[in-house]
């Protein structure tokens, strides 16, 4: 049976592609339904083709406001978490100090904790302190859970760095600031960038922790959550599709640039 042999040899490939389809199917649905013209309040059933939502993406009350709020929070959370996390990563790799074990577990634990537990406990803190819930409590929470991911990303990069490069810079009479800015930082940059990108994505898309600590402030994920109860506007799908396309274009462009650079160097 040649067909069976063929199938057997490609079993892994076929199974893998099925998984890939499972992963991408919802994105296809989101894109297709951004061209839908639903009858009721919910955009779950296909009715007819229309580009209404694409022509008026901000036509839904409060949606674009929540989107810009989410972007702002994501930018600030990324800046905060990247700065604090990079400092911790350098301390962990480059220095010997007391209480290293405690520091390591305090960084690991937030990643090993269900989000709902962190969300609930942070809310009890804010309630006990009488802090008003809103932009600042969301930002504090986001920096907190992004921090560990930045530390992990930067640490991996700095650990694989050759310390002799910095010694060479020092031997060539570069001062500590100059060495850091012109040697250390450029080499660590890919790790820092990876940590920052991850923070941005995590913060922008965070729902559970925000849900607990936002009070009446509405971020974009909170808006989507609310609309699942009240009625889902087609514009949600437009935003989802646009974000997906932008991100894929961004990744493709950065890959092309890296490829070209590598080719030039070779």
């Amino acid at each position: 049976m040649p067909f069976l042999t063929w199938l057997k040899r490609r079993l892994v490939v076929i199974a893998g592609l099925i998984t890939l389809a499972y992963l991408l199917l919802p994105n296809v649905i989101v894109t297709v339904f951004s061209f839908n013209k639903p009858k009721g309040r919910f955009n779950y059933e296909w009715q007819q083709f229309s580009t209404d939502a694409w022509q008026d993406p901000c036509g839904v009350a409060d949606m674009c406001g929540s989107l810009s709020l989410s972007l702002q929070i994501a930018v600030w959370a990324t800046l905060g978490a990247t700065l604090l996390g990079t400092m911790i990563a350098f301390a962990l790799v480059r220095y010997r100090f007391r209480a290293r074990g405690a520091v390591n577990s305090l960084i690991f634990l937030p990643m090993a904790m269900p989000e709902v537990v962190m969300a609930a406990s942070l809310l009890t803190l804010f309630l006990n302190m009488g802090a008003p819930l809103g932009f600042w409590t969301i930002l504090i929470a986001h920096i907190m859970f992004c921090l560990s991911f930045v530390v992990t990303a930067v640490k991996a990069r700095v650990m694989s760095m050759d310390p002799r490069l910095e010694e060479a810079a020092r031997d060539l009479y570069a001062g500590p600031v100059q060495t850091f800015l012109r040697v250390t930082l450029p080499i660590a940059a890919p790790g820092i960038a990876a940590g920052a990108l991850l923070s941005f994505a995590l913060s922008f898309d965070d729902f559970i922790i925000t849900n607990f600590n936002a009070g009446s402030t509405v971020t974009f994920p909170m808006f989507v959550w609310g609309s699942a109860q009240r009625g889902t506007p087609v514009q949600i799908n437009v935003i989802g599709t646009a974000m997906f396309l932008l991100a894929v274009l961004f990744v493709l462009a950065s890959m092309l640039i890296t490829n070209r650079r590598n080719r030039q160097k070779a």
Partner: protein
Amino acid sequence: MSTLTEAPPPLAPAEPEGKPPRKRGRFTPYWLLLPGMLWLVVFFALPMIYQASTSVQTGSLEDGYNVTWHFATYWDALAEYWPQFLRSVFYAAAATVLCLLLGYPLAYLIAFRAGRWRNLIMILVIAPFFTSFLIRTLAWKTILADNGPVVHALNSLHILDLTDFLGWTAGDRVLATPLAVVCGLTYNFLPFMILPLYTSLERIDGRLHEAAGDLYAKPWTTFRKVTFPLSMPGVVSGTLLTFIPAAGDYVNSELLGSTDTRMIGNVIQTQFLRILDYPTAAALSFILMAAILAMVTIYIRRSGTEDLV
């Protein structure tokens, strides 16, 4: 520069042993650590203490709460919500197993068989992350809709009869059943399984496969005796990265499930944000945390001794 930046990990240790620390840098690590660690202590560790204290308080919203060491809250919470706890563990375990079964072939494909398609497939695995996961989860409502093609196909193949018999679905529906929730959980956390699996598979030396083949191992034997054991670190971290968030999730159960599929996350969310019964909510959250930490510790110990030797 280019060859230097891509140099293999240094042979020399970062700081030569025995070298006296420079005086100026003696406090540097503490200054570097201070702001970030302070953040984690105040906004991660301290809240845990507050939560523990809240869980043994009694009182009401109007009169305020006082610590009375009322541990009965824990027993009452467990007595009332043990089905949701159990359900969370079952759903999360099912989703984790499904993620492993689905994710392994794809990670294997990317690591060994994709060739020049590797980067593209990698992007496609990560790309869904860029669309809000809530929007993608809502898309499952369309996919699993009562009169949609998926339900029709499952119905005509009599698969729904079987799952109905097993209690995974109800009648001709998939939405609002355990199957839909597990399906959503699997979907949402699948990339967290694929990425660590891929990382550990990619590190495997291809010559080991050849060696196994040369020693007359069949492909399946090679996989069982060589590839899979070597990918254990990826399996362990992948299962943890899937199980932990899945056990605490309430989004999938709320959007794709019904009142019969409520997980412990749903209970904590309602107690905290709608019923405002803070002691019960804090106790439930504390139990969840303790249970997860205990499970993770045991799991890491066991897998560590069995496979990392």
